């Protein structure tokens, strides 16, 4: 495939669509945005449920993790991309979580 084939904006549709096959549709993007907004609203509401006590931490961590995963999988296309990209990103992510907990343990946060 050559770049010349894509020069005209109107003529790019079929070729580019095949290049990016398997990606979510705009409707999926919109649905994910609505879910993210809904989860953020729940986070803020849950925060005022003082009767939950320390469980608030678990609920907020779960919601935050789910939002993170949704953005990474659907908006960053990790779900549809080459596995190597996931390896690169998740390695950094896991290392950062380990460093965080190591530091917290070292400074007796818990």
């Amino acid at each position: 495939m050559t770049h010349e084939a894509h020069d005209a904006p109107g003529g790019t549709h079929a070729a580019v669509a095949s290049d990016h096959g398997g990606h979510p549709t705009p409707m999926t993007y919109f649905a994910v945005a609505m879910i993210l907004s809904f989860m953020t609203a729940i986070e803020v509401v849950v925060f005022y449920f003082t009767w939950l006590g320390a469980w608030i931490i678990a609920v907020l961590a779960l919601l935050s993790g789910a939002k993170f995963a949704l953005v990474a999988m659907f908006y960053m296309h990790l779900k549809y991309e080459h596995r190597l990209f996931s390896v690169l990103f998740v390695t950094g992510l896991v290392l950062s979580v380990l460093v965080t907990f190591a530091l917290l343990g070292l400074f007796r946060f818990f």
Partner: protein
Amino acid sequence: MEKVSADAPHGAEHEATTTGIDHRKMLVWAFLGSDCMFFGSLIATYLVYKDKSLDGPLPLDVFDIPVTSVSTFVLLMSSMSMVMAYAAISRGSLKGFRIWILSTALMGMTFLAFQVFEFRDFANHEVHLTCAGLDLDELTTLEKKVAEGCDQPGVIEVFDDKNGLTPRTNLFGTTFFTLVGLHGAHVTIGVIWLLSLFFYSFRQRATTERSLDVDLAALYWHFVDVVWIVIFTVIYLLGVFEGF
């Protein structure tokens, strides 16, 4: 330029590389992985020094969750706008791309405006208390300190405007402004990147290569968004939760 394989994963079609994956895209993913560690260590530092400040203001004094929730919503919506821009350029719609990328940049700027407003508000934090009927259990540590002025005879109101939060005020201020400020710097770079793509679109027509340019910018923008998701929960929501 040759196509590597008809059924290769996305990103593999642009260049015949040893890995079969576009090197620029792999570099961006490696950078995002390393940036995770950057923000991870900043969040850890914030948590380590949490509750170690000798003096206020503390999170309970300054954080305004409803306002930050709105700015969080704006940033989340900018991520949706960004994928729409990418979808538009991928199907060759230059007009759609320009609309969506500009709206993403505008939402990014709105988020930054919220941050500037918040930082100014923190720096000019004031405590204003009416002495009659004060419930000490409802007051924050800083407010209790200011409320000591009510002990003097004849005082009906106390006011304090010398306890603004800056990076030099206390450990909370230092770690908070470093973390959130650096995230704001990332957003600023993202906005500049998006605007440059917008203006560049007037000079060049839609191509597959341009689609990859947008894809790389989108990855960075979404990363800024996911980092904020963590900051909003760990720093803001859990920051004002007394059990944490």
